[in-house]
């Protein structure tokens, strides 16, 4: 299944894009942080969180409900 992925801040800068579609064969239950670090070795040492449908969550329970995955580097608001 194809899912919309969004990259922010330093992650978008390092990966070189702000969004893409990624095809998952078996996404349910996998560790998403590890998945993306494997996909992009250049972010191996970057600290980040994952949001599934805009809620912080590092795994997917039901792939059919997923509309978006976002990779969020450390926050700097305020």
């Amino acid at each position, binding site marked *: 299944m194809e899912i919309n992925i969004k990259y922010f801040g330093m992650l978008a800068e390092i990966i070189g894009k702000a969004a893409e579609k990624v095809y998952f064969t078996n996404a349910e239950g996998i560790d998403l942080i590890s998945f993306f670090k494997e996909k992009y070795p250049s972010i191996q040492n970057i600290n980040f969180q994952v949001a599934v449908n805009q809620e912080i969550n590092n795994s997917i329970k039901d792939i059919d409900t997923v509309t978006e995955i976002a990779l969020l580097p450390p926050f700097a*608001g305020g």
Partner: protein
Amino acid sequence: MFDKKKIKNVFVEGAISPEKIATSIAHHQVKTNIGAHDIFLGQVRADIINEKEVVAMEYSAHVEMANHEFYKIREMAFSKFNLSCMHIYHSIGKVNAGEICLFVFTSSAHRKDAMDACRFLVEEIKVKVPIFGKELFADESHVWKVNK
């Protein structure tokens, strides 16, 4: 899920002007049940990093998620504290050193609720809202800011 109509856009393009803050204070003069306001203003600091001075911060965000998070934080503050009023504005885009990037304004009948709520909001915003900051130097290089 969220009631989309209740979710406000917290973001302001560029710096938050002192005039906007003054106007916001003035708007509360008609609300005479209020006895106390507290205000927090975040200002972009000209940090020296590797011997170079930060001249501006460029904020970006996962805007939709950030507005949801701001909404949840607002709802939490309204349930925890006895507030008459609450306003939050955060900059997006470029804000020069010395300019205001965050405006949190709480009002209550007595000082404790306004003051406790204001501190609570600022701490929650720093930890929970997906906002990212690029610290820009005069030579156009940059580093990414991370909240402590």
